[in-house]
């Protein structure tokens, strides 16, 4: 298989940017969280590529950790989203500006 490391990393980079684009573009809170998940996934891909290059097990261990962190973050984040829905009755991020400097 003649896939270079650069290709793999480039793929990870493109997916990361797609996630970033989604975070910046969408107004729905859920979608923003989802886009953050995409970004983390792309980071995991980059780790695997690195591990494959050096024929090491460390990359895959890192993937496990990333996965665990993502799971924890999603749990807490969705709980927060539910609370915010109860507060603001909407999930529009543009409406949630209580931290604005008066």
């Amino acid at each position, binding site marked *: 298989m003649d896939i270079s490391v650069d290709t793999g990393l480039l793929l990870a980079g493109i997916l990361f940017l797609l996630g970033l684009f989604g975070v*910046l573009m969408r107004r729905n809170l859920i979608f923003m969280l989802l886009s953050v998940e995409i970004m983390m996934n792309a980071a995991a891909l980059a780790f695997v590529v690195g591990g494959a290059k050096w024929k090491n097990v460390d990359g895959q261990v890192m993937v496990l950790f990333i996965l665990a962190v993502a799971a924890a973050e999603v749990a807490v984040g969705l709980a927060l989203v539910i609370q915010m829905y109860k507060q603001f009755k909407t999930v529009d991020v*543009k409406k949630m500006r209580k931290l*604005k400097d008066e």
Partner: protein
Amino acid sequence: MLNLLWLIPTLPLISFLILAFFGKKMGKFSGALGVISVGLSALITLIIGVEFLSSPPIGGVYEQTLWTWFDINGFAPEISLYLDPLGLIFTFVITFVGFLIHWYSTEYMDGDEGYSRFFAYMNLFVFSMLMLVLGNNLLLIYFGWEAVGLCSYLLIGFWYKEPYNNYAARKAFLITRVGDTAMLIGLFLLVKDFGTLNVQQILIQAPEVWSVGDSNVFWASLLLLAGAVGKSAQLPLQTWLPDAMAGPTPVCALIHAATMVTAGVFLIARMNVLFEMAPVVQHLVAIIGALTLIVAGLSAFAQNDIKKVLAYSTISQIGYMFLALGVGAWSAGIFHFMTHAFFKALLFLGAGAVILAMHHEQDMYKMGGLRKKIPVVYWTFLFGSAALAAIPIVTAGFYSKDKILFLSLASTKGNIWLWIAGFVGAFITALYTFRMVFITFFGKAKMDVEHRPKMSFKIPLIILGILSLIAGFIELPDVWGDFTLISDFLGGTLPVINIIPEMERWEILLQVITGVVVLIGVYITWQIYVKKRKESYAFEQSGLFNFFFKGWEFDWLYNTLVVAPAVWLSRIDQHDFIDRIYGGIGHLNLGLNKVFSRTQNGYLKIYLGGIAVGMIVALTIVLFL
């Protein structure tokens, strides 16, 4: 006994320190302490004076070195007391008249809340003035000079709760400061040329270092003259003395009549060699004296506050002293200083008694008829006024003033104009002096007497009154005999005057003319103010009279020339560009704050966008830079 010289300035200094720290608790005793310290100094002066006269020390001079002040690169002034005849006369006047005035003040300032503070300041003043006249180098003299200026400021503004007194004190200090700065530059010139400020060394080396008429000696003596003009309130720096009358009357008597304002005269007399070597400057001294005595005399005639009359009169009489020094009549000038100290202090003390009797009223036109009510004050005041006006033969002022008038014409450095100025000045002096006497003491009594003088008033007044009459007898004119004690006494330290030989015959004639003109002046005032006394006179409402009343509008002149531009400049500079820089930093901060606080809008996407932009920037820097 001469080695007790150091005690003379030290006793008032110790008394000042004690009064400064413990005065409040001492109460009435602080006055006694002040009087006793100066009295002891006067006593020691008398003892030393007797010994000095009976068995004079070698060279006619006694010097007592206490210690060396500092030593920098060979410039080593010492704290050293130098007693020569000139210094002895000044010391005697300062301590003796000072003692009488201190005694008088125990009654004058009785009941005032600053009683101990007053005596502390007065003792400090006596100490400073003694250091001025006894110092052997110009640095010590300058120290005394500045210190008396400080005491003058403190004492003029003694009743500091009244704003006008503070203005008057500041004005006095600032105007004398102008002179002091010029004098300091003069001292720098002297150090540059001589390497030392020791007076005797300068006077001895001056003919070797400089030649007569050299530009250096011209500038040095001119600057010293400027200092003397400031301190002695001569033209053009005379405007502070009438305002200085805001202080208590004993202060005016001691500082602004007898001693501090004569410090200029002392300085010129001390540095006589320098002035002799700069004839232009010496002539300028005479011209300043002549002009001042006319200006001040006319101003004195138009005043209605009794203390202001005496203030202008002081300026005028010191003009006479300057005139004497300017024509080379050194001992005559010092003689006039001595007699003037006696009768002017007497007049001020008498005026103080009158003011207290008249419920602190100082306007002469509100007084009247005091002749019968407070006779001791009246008679002593009359003697003092007679001496001031130089009534012939019986008063001390006659001898001193006449000598000056004769020498202004007869000296090789005098001329007819100076004599005319002095002559007219004598007439004006008689006019304003007796105008003051007649308005205050004669006529109808307008107010009741409140405070009858007690012993502390009467005895100093009587002593000074007697002195005003007899003190002249120690120096009789040459044609009356050879009884010239003062000139002989001072001849050791001051140069002897050169007289044009032909003029000696004119002395009698000039004396007669002057005496007659003085008596005519007394008669004229008698007619106007006693015989045909009217309530108000047409000539007193005229514009010229008002011009004299305002002191020839010098205040207005200085206000427009000096004060107003300075105030205008400082107003412009209030928001100058350096201020703007510092204010601008604050404004810049606030502006940036406004701009940046708009990024904190609580909008999540903007924050994330910021993160993205930051990522781009960081990557760019890492990759391409």
